[in-house]
C-alpha cells in the first residue's frame, strides 16, 4: 500500500502548476468482519477499502477532492488528474478564504507496527469455542490499517498497523448483559480465553433479579468505560477552540466565568502510547503531550491551524474537527478493591449509553445506564438495576461532586467502524461521585 501511495503522490504532484499546493491523505484497510448472534455467525465478509483525499490550495482558495483507490495505477492516476483539473477550475470561481492554511515541510515520519494477528480463516474456530453455552452477540474486526499523508513540498508521513477487536455482549436468559471488548495487535488464544472467562464470571452477577430504583440523586461509581464515554462528549462541541468561539461549546463557563472542575480532574492529549498517528490530515505533527485540563483548570483547548489563523491564537495542530485523538485522564488514589465499600449505598455503573448534550451551555449531559449496572447497599453489590436515564452536568460529576479517582487507568480502544475502522483509544480511570441525577 505504501508503494501505491508513493507512486500516486509522485504522479499527482507532478501535475501541479506554479502557485498550486496539494496535500494528499491516504486512509485504508484490509479487514475481516464477522458478526455474531446467539454464539453463531450472522454475517461474514472481507473489505478492501482505500481512499485518497486531496486538498488543493491555490489563489487563496482551498478545494477538496477524494476518490476510492482501486489499486490499478492507471485508473487511480486518471482519477487524481481529473480531480486536480476540477479543483483548479473551482479555485477561480469560489470566494477567497482569508484563513487558508498552506502546507509546510517540517519533516517526515514512518511508523509500521509489527503484529501477529489471527489469520482470517482461523477466526471463527478461535473465537466460538470459548463462548460455548452462552448467548454471545458482537462483532469481530481484524486486519491491516493504513494512514498516509504527503504534500507538494516533499513532506511525507506513513502509519501502518495491524489489529483486531472482538467487541461483544454476553446475555442472560433474563436479558441482562455484560460488555466485553478484547482488542490488540498480537493474538494470544490463552489471553482471549481468560478474558472471556472473566466476562462469564461477571455474567453470573447479572443473573440476580434486577431491581427498579427511583429517580433522584445517588452516590455513584463509574467504571473507566463509562468515564471514557463522558470524555467522548468533550470532542463534540466541547474542548474545541472553534466551538468556543462559535458559541456552541459546553466549556463556555470555564472560559468566560473561570469555573473550574475538581482539582482531582486532569486530562492530556497523549500520543506517546502510539494508538494513532501523531500527524493530522494536514500532515501537521502534534506535540507528544498537551495538557488540556490540569487540576480542574482549563489549560488548553484544541486548536487547528485554521482556527489559529481565524482567531489569532497559536495552533497545537489539532485535527480540523478539533476532537481529542488520544486522551488520557490522570489517576487518583482509590483502589478498585475498595470501590464497593466506598460507594456504601448507591450505584455501580459499568457502562452508559446514548449520550447527548441536554443543555450544552450548562455542561449538562443526558444518557442511560447499560450493561452491568448495580445497586449497592452497606458496601455490597445487591443486584443489577433496571435501565435508568440520567441528566447531570459535567461541572458536577467532574467538578464539585467528584469524590475520588481510581488509582489505575484502563485503555478503552476506539472500535467504531463508520466508514472504516477507527484508530485511537481513551485512557482513563474510574471515578466516584457524591451525587448523580437519575431522571426517568
Amino acid at each position: 500500500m505504501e508503494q501505491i501511495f508513493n507512486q500516486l503522490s509522485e504522479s499527482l504532484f507532478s501535475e501541479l502548476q506554479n502557485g498550486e499546493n496539494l496535500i494528499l491523505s491516504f486512509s485504508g484497510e484490509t479487514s475481516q468482519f464477522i458478526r455474531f448472534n446467539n454464539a453463531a455467525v450472522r454475517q461474514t465478509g472481507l473489505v478492501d477499502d482505500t481512499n485518497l483525499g486531496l486538498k488543493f490550495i491555490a489563489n487563496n482558495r482551498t478545494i477538496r477532492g477524494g476518490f476510492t483507490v482501486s489499486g490499478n495505477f492507471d485508473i487511480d492516476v486518471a482519477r487524481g488528474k481529473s480531480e486536480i483539473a476540477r479543483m483548479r477550475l473551482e479555485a477561480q470561481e469560489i470566494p477567497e478564504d482569508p484563513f487558508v492554511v498552506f502546507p509546510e515541510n517540517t519533516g517526515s515520519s514512518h511508523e509500521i507496527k509489527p503484529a501477529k494477528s489471527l489469520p482470517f480463516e482461523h477466526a471463527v474456530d478461535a473465537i466460538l469455542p470459548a463462548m460455548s453455552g452462552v448467548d454471545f452477540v458482537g462483532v469481530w474486526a481484524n486486519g491491516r490499517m493504513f494512514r498516509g499523508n504527503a504534500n507538494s513540498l516533499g513532506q511525507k508521513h506513513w502509519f501502518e498497523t495491524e489489529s483486531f477487536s472482538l467487541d461483544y455482549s454476553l446475555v442472560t436468559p433474563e436479558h441482562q448483559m455484560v460488555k466485553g471488548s478484547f482488542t490488540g495487535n498480537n493474538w494470544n488464544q490463552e489471553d482471549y480465553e481468560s478474558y472471556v472467562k472473566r466476562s462469564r464470571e461477571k455474567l453470573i452477577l447479572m443473573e440476580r433479579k434486577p431491581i427498579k430504583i427511583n429517580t433522584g440523586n445517588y452516590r455513584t461509581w463509574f467504571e473507566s468505560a463509562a468515564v471514557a464515554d463522558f470524555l467522548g462528549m468533550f470532542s463534540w462541541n466541547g474542548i474545541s477552540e472553534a466551538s468556543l468561539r462559535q458559541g456552541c461549546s459546553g466549556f463556555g463557563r470555564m472560559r468566560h466565568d473561570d469555573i473550574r472542575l475538581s482539582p482531582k480532574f486532569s486530562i492530556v492529549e497523549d500520543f506517546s502510547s502510539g494508538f494513532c498517528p501523531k500527524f493530522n490530515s494536514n500532515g501537521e505533527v502534534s506535540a507528544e503531550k498537551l495538557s488540556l485540563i490540569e487540576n480542574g483548570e482549563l489549560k488548553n483547548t484544541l486548536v487547528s491551524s485554521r482556527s489559529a489563523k481565524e482567531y489569532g491564537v497559536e495552533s497545537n495542530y489539532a485535527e480540523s474537527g478539533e476532537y481529542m485523538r488520544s486522551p488520557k485522564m490522570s489517576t487518583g488514589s482509590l483502589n478498585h478493591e475498595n470501590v464497593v465499600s466506598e460507594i456504601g449505598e448507591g450505584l455501580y455503573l459499568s457502562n452508559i449509553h446514548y449520550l447527548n448534550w441536554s443543555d450544552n451551555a450548562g455542561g449538562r449531559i443526558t444518557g442511560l445506564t447499560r450493561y452491568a449496572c448495580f445497586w449497592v447497599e452497606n458496601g455490597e453489590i445487591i443486584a443489577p438495576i433496571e435501565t435508568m436515564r440520567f441528566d447531570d452536568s459535567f461541572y458536577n460529576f467532574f467538578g464539585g461532586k467528584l469524590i475520588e479517582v481510581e488509582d489505575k487507568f484502563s485503555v478503552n480502544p476506539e472500535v467504531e467502524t463508520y466508514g472504516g475502522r477507527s484508530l485511537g483509544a481513551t485512557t482513563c480511570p474510574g471515578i466516584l461521585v457524591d451525587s448523580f441525577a437519575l431522571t426517568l
Partner: protein
Amino acid sequence: MKLDIDIKQLLNAVDVPAQWVGLREVYEAHTPRMIRDGVPVANGRVSTHGIMVEVLVNGQFGYYGTPDMSPESIAKAAKKAYRQAEIASHNAHYQFDLSARPSHQGSYQSPFTKNRNDLSAGKLNEILLEAYNHLKVSDKIVSASSLCQVIETTFRFVSSNGSDIHQDFLMLEFDLSATAAEGPNQQTRTFGGMRGTCRQMGMEYFDKYEILANANRIGEQALELLSADDCPTGEMDVVIAPDQMMMQIHESIGHALEVDRILGDERNYAGWSFVKLEDFGKLQYGSKLMNITFDPTLESEFASYAFDDGGLKATKEYLIKEGLLVRGLGGQESQIRSGLNGVANFRASGWNRAPIDRMANINLEPGNSSFDELISQVEYGVYMESNKSWSIDDYRNKFQFGCEYGKLIENGKMTKTVKNPNYRGISNPFWRSLKGVGNADTFGIYGTPNCGKGEPNQVIRVGHASPACLFENIQVFGGV
C-alpha cells in the same frame, strides 16, 4: 471521474460453486459547499466507487467488498467470499436458501429538474454568502453558516438468478444556522434542526428569495431565544412541529420496529427492542389517531426508492394502523427468520457494507386538525420546533429530546417564546397520549443523513414526514 462498469459481464467472471451470487455496484459522490462567518469553509467533491460481491454457500452468505472492479479482481473476491461463507456455514446463525434473494428487474430515477452542473460552484457560493448575510442580523450572532451538500448515487445490482436493477439518485442536504451568544448564554437556531432539511431533489431548490427570507427568520429567532425565559418544568401538553416529530418517529418507532433488532442482531451495539415478535397484530402502540407507514413512494422524500439492496421491490405499507402494530421493518432475510410480514428495507450504507434492516421513509399520516385547532385544545403547554438533542435507551423505551425553539401555550393561544424546551417519556405511554394529529396543511417532509446502526457500523439516509401533533400530560423541562 466515474468509471463505467459492465456489471453483467463481471458476473460472468465469477466462477465459484455457490448457490447464488450477487454483485452490487455503488458509486456515490458528495459535493459540499459551506459559508461560515462570511468565508468559504467547505468546497469539494468526494466520491466512492466499488462492488460488493456476495455469495450463498451451504445456506450462509459471505461477502467481499472491493474497489478493484476488473474481472480478475471480482473473480478473486468471489473466491474469498466463498471461503468465508464456507467456513462460517458450520456455525451459521440461520441456513438461508434462494428465497432470501428474490429475482427482480427494474429501475428508479429520483425526481429533479436541474442537475448539479446547472448551478456553478461560484453561483452556489454567492447564494450561500448572501444567506449568511441575512443570518447575521446582529453583532450578537457570534457565528452563522449556510451549507448544502449534493449527493449523487448510482446503484446497480445483478445476480445469478436474474436480478437486474438500476437506480439513480440526486439528493440535497441544506441548512442555515445562527448562534447568538452573550458569554456562556448561547442559543442556536437552524433550518429544521440537525440537518433535517434533506430531500431527493435537484438544484431547483435554490430559490434565492425563499432561502434569504428563512435566513433572516432564523437569525431573528436566535436573537429572540437569547433573551427568552427558560421553558417551564412540569407535566403539561405539548404540540410538536414536524421537524421534531421526525426525531420522535425515528427513535421511538422506527428503530423499535426493526426486525433484526427484535431478533437480537443489534444487542451489542444499537440495542434490542421493547417490541417482541408476538406483539405484531396485538400491541396497541399508540392512540387510535396514530397511522404510521413505510413509504418509499413519497416523491422527493429522502429515502424513496424502488428496490432495496437485496433487490426486493419496495411498496408502501402500514406499520401501525389506528394505533395497532401490524407490520415490522424487516427485509427478506428477517421475514424468513421471523415469519413476520415485512417491507423492502434491506439496505447498506455503501458497497463496502452488507445490507441489514434499516428505516427508509417512515411517516406519520396526516389527520384532521388544523394547526390552530391543535393549539386551541391546550390550556397550558409548550409548542416545540426543531430537534437539537436526542437520546433513548437500548430497548427504545425511555427517550429524552431537546428542541431549539419553544412557544408557551396559554388558554389555547401561543404567547411568549421559551428557550431550551425539552421533554422526556416512555415510548408506548407517550404514543398513547397522542391527542391530536394535524392535517395535510401542517405536514412537513424531513429526514436525516446520519442514522447509525450495524456491526460493522453503517450510517444511512432516512426520511420522516409528519404533521404537527398534540400530546397530553408530558414531562417538560428547561435548561440548567
